[in-house]
């Protein structure tokens, strides 16, 4: 009897602790989604969808709650089922919207897409994928196959997209020139610097003055040495500057089936090795705890390279009256932004219509509203500090002081983003970019840490890429 009582108590404790975990998870996601703006009332088109013999359920594949929150906060005519957890879906007219969240970790999101998309046409009506989200790094993988529908097939014309930045269209245009996805975001990047360190080491935290110290890679390296003397690191890790180099390559990763290391990538290796050896930066992976420790208010990291979403989505809570002070520099408003040595972009989420969708009208409606409706897009900038994919709206916002970013201490960086977005060139992308970039950074980490020579690290990079893509040679 005694034993039984003990086991019941233990089981009770376990259940209680599990419940506690669930509770805290829900409340933490609630903070981010709060402040839901009242939706407009322009969603008349969608109500007809269900009557015209289209599907009753609209399935969206995604990897986090970002798009779900944008839908819940901004999509006209859309009613979220749960304001605190946007991924629970909602109703768009008579159509029920469901989100399937698969995390990107370990390629799980793409593995899931690879499994469901080719068979989508034969799936039961309520389970057909109608929309799926993709990232720039692997966009071509889906765009160059028939699993994504051209937006022209949905009735969206080029005129409607005239205000969008050209690069956001180039990324999702297939080999035959069909545009297959749309995005509400633009992701040009800037150099985000720590104002306190800038004042102490460079003598000023004015963006123009700071830009002089990071205008090209030579001055960037000199600044790194000056920072080191005062006990600061220029970047958190070598991988911070990687994208700036990899976006400015003059040849793609794969040329005629052979793996090719561009000069710009090699320049990153040389610079990074020197910086690591001098103790000016670290070798942690992006998104690791060691990387994000630099987000703290009193951290020793001078700068990060990133687009608007990095500032508002990843670097800490924004002080908007609803969020808690998490001790981050973002909350304190202590960052500054400047153009940096070279232009680059990072990320962005594209919406694609899945081949085999049974809700083409609703899908087209979502794509139109979320990526071309200027009112919706302006709301997104105001509420979420996103850089949106609409030239006139952004150019107007760039000169409007009410669009100042709180994390940047009231600086309005949109002008810099606008300039960057116009300059982004995507001539040298290929569908192997993601796999190659990931393998290259991991392989070079061994070189930076002194576990391998450059030649050995290069060999292990080739090995790792050919494991991922057996069709490639080196």
């Amino acid at each position, binding site marked *: 009897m005694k034993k039984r009582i003990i086991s019941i108590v233990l089981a009770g404790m376990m259940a209680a602790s599990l419940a506690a975990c669930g509770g805290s998870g829900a409340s933490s996601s609630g903070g981010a989604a709060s402040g839901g703006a009242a939706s407009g009332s322009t969603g008349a088109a969608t109500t007809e969808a269900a009557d015209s013999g289209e599907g009753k359920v609209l399935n969206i594949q995604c990897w986090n709650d970002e798009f779900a929150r944008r839908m819940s906060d901004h999509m006209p005519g859309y009613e979220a089922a749960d304001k605190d957890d946007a991924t629970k879906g909602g109703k768009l007219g008579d159509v029920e919207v469901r989100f399937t969240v698969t995390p990107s970790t*370990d*390629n799980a999101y*793409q*593995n899931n897409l*690879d499994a469901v*998309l*080719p068979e989508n046409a034969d799936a039961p009506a309520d389970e057909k994928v109608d929309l799926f989200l993709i990232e720039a790094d692997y966009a071509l*993988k*889906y765009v160059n*196959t028939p*699993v994504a529908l051209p937006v022209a097939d949905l009735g969206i014309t080029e005129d409607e997209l005239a205000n969008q930045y050209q690069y956001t269209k180039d990324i999702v245009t297939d080999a035959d020139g069909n545009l297959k996805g749309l995005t509400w975001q633009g992701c040009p990047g800037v150099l985000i610097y720590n104002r306190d360190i800038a004042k102490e080491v460079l003598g000023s935290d004015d963006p123009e003055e700071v830009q002089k110290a990071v205008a090209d890679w030579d001055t960037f390296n000199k600044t790194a040495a000056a920072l080191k003397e005062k006990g600061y690191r220029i970047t958190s890790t070598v991988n911070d500057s990687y994208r700036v180099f990899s976006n400015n390559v003059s040849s793609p990763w794969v040329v005629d089936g052979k793996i090719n290391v561009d000069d710009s990538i090699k320049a990153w290796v040389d610079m990074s090795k020197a910086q690591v050896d001098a103790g000016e930066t*670290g*070798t*942690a*992976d992006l998104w*690791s*705890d*060691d990387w994000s*420790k630099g987000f703290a208010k009193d951290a020793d990291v001078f700068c990060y390279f990133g687009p608007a979403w990095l500032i508002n989505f990843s670097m800490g809570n924004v002080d908007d009256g609803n969020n808690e002070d998490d001790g981050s520099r973002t909350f304190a408003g202590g960052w500054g932004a400047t153009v940096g040595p070279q232009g680059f972009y990072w990320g962005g989420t594209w919406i694609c219509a899945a081949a085999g969708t049974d809700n083409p009208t609703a899908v087209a409606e979502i794509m139109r509203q979320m990526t071309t409706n200027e009112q919706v897009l302006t709301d997104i900038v105001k509420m979420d500090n996103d850089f949106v994919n609409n030239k006139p709206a952004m150019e107007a916002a760039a000169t409007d002081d009410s669009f100042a970013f709180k994390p940047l201490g009231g600086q309005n960086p949109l002008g810099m983003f606008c300039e960057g977005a116009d300059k982004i060139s995507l001539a040298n992308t290929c*569908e*192997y970019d993601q*796999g190659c970039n990931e393998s290259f950074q*991991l392989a070079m*980490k*061994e070189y930076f*840490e002194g*576990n*391998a020579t450059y030649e*050995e690290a290069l060999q*292990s990079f080739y*090995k*790792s890429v050919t*494991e*991922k*893509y*057996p*069709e490639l040679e080196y």
Partner: protein
Amino acid sequence: MRHNRWGYYFLIPFFLVFIIFQLIPLGTTIYNSFFEHYFRNGLTEVGPNFVGLANYRTLFSSGDIGQYFKNTMIMWVMGFVPQIIVSLLLAAWFSDPSLRLRGRKFFQSVIYMPNLIMASAFAMLFFALFADTGPINTMLLQIGIFRAPYKFLSHTFSARALVAGMNFLMWFGNTTILLLAGMLGIDQTLYEAAEVDGANATQIFFRITLPILRPILLYVVITSLIGGLQLFDVPQILTNGQGGPNRTTMTLIMYLNKHLYSKNYGMGGALSVILFIITGILSIIIFRINTRSQQ
């Protein structure tokens, strides 16, 4: 004969499950290993084209498989040696009636507990503990042992030692219980006779306990070896799937997992067949030893 038939009925579920989930996959794996069959970039299917032994040739000619086999074995030995020593010691103490240890049942349960945690959760825990700015480094810095944080996962020895250490922690309780069962089965009169003859504790352990324990000890070694060959979850999570530094903690199964990225059935199949042969040989050895000890 009629009374025997029910036995066969009860065996049906096992054989059904065995055939569907083990025998058929085994057959298709061997079949696949002779084909070039993968998905280009995850989406476009290539093959299947019959290529004979080309997959095996690729595996052996690159020399990687030998390296990964070596890694696996080194990490197994690093974990198994302390494991068997500690387990023998604990089992000897627990089974020794003259020590009159209190709370034996309690300690038996406690040392088994690490095995109840999921290996991946355990690996995550160690990953966080031994991160460059993790608590272990912070502690060592504050005590003053290191002046800069030590990158545990960037050095071959420390990374392997972490994997081996975790395996040791997870499995020494299990081994202790197996050995303890064997020791408790030894006839007490043998010990008493030895004591009467004036043997000391060390002599009793090496001359009586160990020889009688031999079959169980061999069983432990071989099962641990087979388990060690399939070492995967701990190093996979701890090194983020990379087997770093420089693939010196990459095990055979982690290498197999690498071929999953492109759904490379051909190469994956060939690697599995090689693993199957190695494990098969080891199983035959244990089977031989078991039957011999019964005679």
